[in-house]
């Protein structure tokens, strides 16, 4: 049954800043802290920007300049799909001989999804395939730029004063650019809520330059407002002409009310992000720079370090009756792993969702290592683990199936939830090999890790 393999059936508890329960496929494992991490307890950093349709990479500085938009690709203002350039042949007079007409190629933008074309808003066909399309300019651009400059200067001044105060406290001679050297990547510079916004300060003038005093005129409040047109109430509304809220808000500069003023905008860039553990500052996930590559330079996902529990089959569960559930345990590493299961004790603070009592096998389960070449190796002898047939149902390379006994304790309609602790040994191959004094110590020591696992077994059989 494929529904038993759904990711939310088996969740692992993450003990981070807040306790989260997520399936193992969505978790990361910091092998320096030896702990599970979820997306909420890691810091996300922008790695690179790229356009989703032309897959062009863009350095972050250039992206900021272009307001995070691609230079070549456009979005349909009607349905937000990517616009494609189409060509038609139009008769145009030759430049040498005005009486003769020759076929020239004219290009226009068209959307394949909603059939919007650039001719709908009155944009003339261009004679070049790319680069001829311009976005309409915002009428308030100048005022906004002036305001941004003024506030940048203000932020810079504030930052200098803060640096001066910090220098006055420490009597060492630290370089003036102390707070500028560290960008927003380190924890020191991360924005604290309520503090001064330092992002603008980074963009301002270099140190030591004379700063021009920029002054702005305050905004003027107008007394008279443009009156509504007289036929505002009597004019019939033509619905195809009115833009939807979504179409309007995607162009906050103009927010056109009529569909004939919807101009296409450049496509938004997407970004690749890297994840970093907040405690030890090591990278948990770092993608490759090339937008066409889906691989990772560093990929510390939980499924490649922690044994995974999956539900294989559930019998009919009845209230207060013991039933056997078949689970599988998969070993992701290449070395032999020993796993011990333990039921949650009474009053366990982690066990809030459990609705059934569970009896887990007490003996230690041994999982063989993952051997990719095992199926091709004919001479290998099958490893002999003495398996108790009451506990272990089957064994297949690095996976075993085992039984647990479940006694549902609540008679409600909700799903039966079972939780237990799983304890396995983890060899940290990343830790540096310290030269030992005795000389005979093993380089990698096993650490015993314990995880809290919850399984959702489904409703009681009626």
């Amino acid at each position, binding site marked *: 049954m494929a529904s038993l393999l759904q990711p939310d059936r088996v969740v692992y508890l993450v003990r981070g800043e807040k306790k989260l329960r997520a399936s193992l496929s969505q978790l990361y494992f910091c092998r320096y802290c030896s702990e599970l991490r979820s997306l909420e307890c890691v810091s996300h950093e922008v790695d690179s920007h790229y356009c989703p349709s032309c897959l062009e990479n863009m350095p972050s500085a250039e992206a900021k300049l272009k307001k995070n938009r691609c230079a070549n690709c456009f979005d349909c203002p009607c*349905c937000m799909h990517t616009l494609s350039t189409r060509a038609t042949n139009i008769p145009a007079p030759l430049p040498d001989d005005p009486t003769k007409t020759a076929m020239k190629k004219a290009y226009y933008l068209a959307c394949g*999804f*909603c*059939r*919007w*074309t650039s001719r*709908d808003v009155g944009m003339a066909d261009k004679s070049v395939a790319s680069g001829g399309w311009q976005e309409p300019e915002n009428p308030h651009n100048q005022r906004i730029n002036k305001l941004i400059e003024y506030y940048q200067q203000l932020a810079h001044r504030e930052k200098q004063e803060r640096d001066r105060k910090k220098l006055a406290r420490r009597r060492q001679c630290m370089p003036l650019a102390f707070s500028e050297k560290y960008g927003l990547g380190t924890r020191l510079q991360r924005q604290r809520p309520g503090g001064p916004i330092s992002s603008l300060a980074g963009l301002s003038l270099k140190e030591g330059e004379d700063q021009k005093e920029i002054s702005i005129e305050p905004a003027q409040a107008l007394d008279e407002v443009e009156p509504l047109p007289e036929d505002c109430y009597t004019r019939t509304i033509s619905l195809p002409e009115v833009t939807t809220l979504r179409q309007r808000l995607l162009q906050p500069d103009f927010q056109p009310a009529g569909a004939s003023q919807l101009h296409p905008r450049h496509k938004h860039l997407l970004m690749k992000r890297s994840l970093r553990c907040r405690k030890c500052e090591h990278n948990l996930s770092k993608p490759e720079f090339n937008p066409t590559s889906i691989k990772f330079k560093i990929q510390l996902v939980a499924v490649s370090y922690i044994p995974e529990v999956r539900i294989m089959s559930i019998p009919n569960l009845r209230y207060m009756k013991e039933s056997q559930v078949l689970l599988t345990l998969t070993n992701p590493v290449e070395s032999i792993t020993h796993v011990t299961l333990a039921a949650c004790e009474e009053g366990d603070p982690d066990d809030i969702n459990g609705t059934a009592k569970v009896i887990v096998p007490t003996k230690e389960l041994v999982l063989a290592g993952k051997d990719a070449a095992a199926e091709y190796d004919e001479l290998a002898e099958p490893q002999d683990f003495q398996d108790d047939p009451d506990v272990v149902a089957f064994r297949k390379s690095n996976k075993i199936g085992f039984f647990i006994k479940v006694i549902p304790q609540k008679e409600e309609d909700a799903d039966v939830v079972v939780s237990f602790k799983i304890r396995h040994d983890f060899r940290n191959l990343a830790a540096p090999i310290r030269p030992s004094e005795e000389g005979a110590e093993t380089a990698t020591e096993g650490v015993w890790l314990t995880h809290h696992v919850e399984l959702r077994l489904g409703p009681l059989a009626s």
Partner: protein
Amino acid sequence: CKDKNTFKLPTVKIAAGAVVCVESEIRGDVTIGPRTVVHPKARIIAEAGPIVIGEGNLIEEQALIINGYPENITPDSEVEPKTMTIGMNNVFEVGCVSQALKIGDNNVIESKADVGRNVILTSGCIIGAFCQVNTCEVIPENTVIYGSGCMRRVQTERPQPQTLQLDFLMKILPNYHHLKKTVKAGHHAS
């Protein structure tokens, strides 16, 4: 004997310039105009009345054009047969289902779209892929229905007739498929 001769079996009349592949399923009283291309595995079924298809239409694979009985009427009761008319230069893309009784010219019904019986398509309408239109209305000219919520908008120009595609298909299809020819009237197997 005489009774048998007066009862005419519904025939399929295929005009001279049309290309109808033999793997298509055409049942009932169907008239197909010239320059129309019917791909293999297309189905044109005239159950509750005749179907008249104009010229220059393109009916792709697994398209279903059906003049069927309305759902709440059993086939036994007496219903007046209504003719389904389809105009010129329409495109029925792969897998669409059309039950509309009146279709004008230059319409495009995209893949897996479903057009109900009470819809009347005028000209230049585009029913987007997987859109199900089963309202009881006349779709105005040059309307585009698209998206999962069947959003609508009006486009300024009608879709171009697929003359290039039709010419290409009329040349290539006979190389790979046998074609259906119309059965001449009076040629009943006696």
